[in-house]
């Protein structure tokens, strides 16, 4: 079974991930605190990380850069309610786009989303829950 770690300061959206992706057979762990999320990811690297972009304390982009240094291969789905996260060019967002998105292992979804879009993005990044 494939494992997903979702990090978002909104507990409600984390419940949505657990329900939607759990129903498809994925095992979903969650964290509302970015620091705790980072610990979870490093302790047992999952098949996919879903990251909110705007979080208090540590942004999703910074959390991403933290674990990507050592865990380069983990696919990531950024989930954001603020499309400007990547639509406005900052040195950090452009660097991540050109370095990490370019290899095809990173995707974005805008909140609110429909379940089909979420499942399609997850399938595209890591395949079905039971696939090898």
């Amino acid at each position, binding site marked *: 079974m494939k494992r997903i770690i979702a990090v978002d300061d909104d507990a409600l959206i984390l419940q949505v991930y657990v329900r939607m992706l759990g129903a498809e057979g994925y095992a979903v762990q969650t964290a509302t605190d970015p620091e705790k999320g980072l610990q979870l990811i490093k302790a047992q690297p999952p098949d996919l990380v879903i990251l909110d972009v705007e979080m208090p304390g540590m942004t999703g982009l910074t959390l991403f850069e933290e674990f990507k240094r050592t865990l380069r291969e983990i696919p990531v789905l950024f989930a*954001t309610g603020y*499309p*400007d996260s*990547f*639509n*406005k*060019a900052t040195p950090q967002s*452009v660097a991540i*786009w050109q370095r990490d*998105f*370019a*290899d*095809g*292992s*990173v*995707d*974005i*979804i*805008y909140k*609110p989303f429909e379940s*089909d*879009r979420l499942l*399609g*993005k997850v399938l*595209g*990044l*890591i*395949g*079905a829950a039971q*696939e*090898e």
Partner: protein
Amino acid sequence: MLSPIERARIYRQTRSVLVAHWIDLGCLDVRVGEIFLTLSGQLKHLGHQEPLTGMGIEEMLSELRRVPGVHRVNLDVENWKSVGEGIWQEVEVKDDKQKYLASLAGLPLEPRKPAPGKTP
């Protein structure tokens, strides 16, 4: 039949092409089928880039067709329509946020049909 590994490679290479063309992945869905690679949702550049053009779309489609394993590309997006061989025209659409806010407010996205027996 495509193996999961082959399918994953096509997804990955497709995203790479889209990223190289600065396509906003957040509003685009990609599906890899046996015959078709289908793009749906909305196709647009990231906000800090020049707006996407029909010629830019054709260049991107041409690169997608060169991804090994992709036989045909089906561009079925809300905001562009084909008006001839290799010619694309932009179509105005409500963005997802507008649709969502309208649904929260209970506003109809489509004109309501009159109830049976009543004239509008």
